[in-house]
């Protein structure tokens, strides 16, 4: 980028995003999709709205092409894509889990890898297969080696997943801070805190050991890891008592109701933070909010397609579809 002009206020980008937001599906359009007779009818309606490309044959193709369109647009607007690592880190660690299990089981399942990642999935696959973890970035290499050894020894898939998730959450928080965007760092912290709290509560309910908690509980700035592990060892009420002393005291009533209520509380909180970005004309925040809005939209469409294919009622699908950004 030497000599190139970099617009740090993202004025052009935000204005373009504002126009692009007009094409996001509204609540009534989602309702129209839910009311469609079957998955084929949903596919036709989305095609009329410009979703997918001519080469798409299935709804999975359509969603992949929309994901591609999203990142192509963002790459045009933001010269340094590393600011959005927050969204791509989970893809890296999903690929790491897949590679560890694939190598251990000596199988090949290329379709389980996601391309929405900061590291080429093939590089992760090769590093794990050849046990050459130096090929990976330093923050991933050491943990990958340990987790791989532990999985080969124990074949405990859950322990492997939780250990990878822990590193992923810590990396997401770091990526959020590095983005220098208030919205992105808040989003990363909130996602990480929600995952940590859920893991702690579930571990307390199932009586997991301290060793498991040490592997599973991520170290994030807004929660005292040791205090949370200790509380999780002593039961759910102790976790709630601890959370009342933290920034997450408002989430306690939802946690008491159950994990679904807590997940809804977290989703609502993130949606509120996203909607705040509609009032911003400058900066990365509105672009990040648009990325999230499109990802949520694609999740909703995926839910509608699978619901239709599996014969779920419209009401059941409607309950699972996320709130819209527009």
């Amino acid at each position: 980028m030497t000599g190139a002009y970099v617009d740090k206020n993202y004025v052009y980008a935000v204005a373009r995003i504002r126009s692009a937001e007009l094409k996001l599906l509204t609540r009534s359009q989602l309702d129209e999709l839910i009311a469609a007779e079957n998955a084929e009818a949903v596919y036709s309606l989305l095609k009329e709205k410009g979703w997918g490309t001519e080469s798409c044959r299935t709804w999975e193709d359509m969603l992949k092409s929309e994901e591609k369109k999203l990142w192509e647009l963002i790459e045009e607007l933001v010269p340094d894509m590393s600011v959005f690592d927050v969204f791509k880190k989970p893809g890296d660690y999903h690929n790491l889990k897949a590679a560890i299990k694939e190598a251990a089981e000596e199988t090949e399942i290329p379709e389980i890898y996601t391309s929405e990642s900061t590291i080429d999935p093939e590089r992760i696959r090769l590093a794990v297969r050849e046990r050459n973890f130096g090929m990976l970035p330093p923050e991933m290499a050491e943990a990958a080696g340990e987790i791989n050894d532990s999985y080969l020894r124990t074949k405990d898939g859950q322990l492997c997943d939780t250990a990878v998730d822990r590193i992923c959450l810590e990396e997401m928080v770091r990526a959020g801070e590095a983005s220098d965007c208030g919205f992105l760092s808040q989003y990363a912290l909130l996602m990480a805190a929600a995952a940590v709290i859920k893991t702690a509560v579930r571990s307390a309910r199932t009586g997991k050991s301290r060793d498991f908690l040490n592997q599973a509980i991520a170290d994030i700035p807004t929660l005292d890891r040791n205090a949370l592990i200790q509380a999780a060892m002593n039961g759910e009420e102790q976790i709630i008592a601890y959370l009342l002393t933290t920034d997450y005291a408002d989430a306690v009533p939802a946690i008491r109701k159950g994990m679904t209520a807590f997940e809804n509380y977290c989703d609502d909180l993130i949606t509120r933070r996203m909607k705040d970005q509609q009032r911003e004309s400058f900066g990365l925040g509105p672009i990040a909010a648009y990325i999230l809005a499109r990802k949520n939209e694609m999740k909703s469409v995926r839910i509608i397609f699978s619901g239709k294919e599996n014969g779920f009622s419209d009401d059941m699908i409607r309950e699972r579809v996320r709130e819209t950004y527009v």
Partner: protein
Amino acid sequence: MASSGIFWAVLGAALAAGCAGAGSAIGVGIAGRAASGVVTQEPGMFSKVLILQLLPGTQGIYGLLIAFIALSQIGLLGGGAQMNMELTKGLMYFAACLPMAIGGLISAIAQGKCAVSAIGLVAKRPDQFGKSMIFPAMVETYAILALLVSILSINGIG
């Protein structure tokens, strides 16, 4: 030294045109970036966003007007320049031009940022174009006040 007034008078005129013009260039430039973003997605929005982009351009015209009035008062336009103008009188011309120079610079940048938000509003809700014009137009008030004070002051000196 006593006759260096002409220098201060010309400096005032130059600042009025230069600062207000620079402010307008920044304001129109920033609004232009936003307008380009909208037109990339929706070419049909060109005429609407063009009007919003031009709003911060008026300060540059006001600055030019003040510079013309000041230069003609001191005789640099149309002949009869007061080359031995007293320092006090020159400084008065200088001070008279300052409201337009400072007010023009700051109000044009602020109006440019406001125009960016208004362009975002039009991009999202094209039917709200009329209302979107009002918000950046409010900033114009303060450029006009600066223009009035500068005109009245320059005429008062003459």
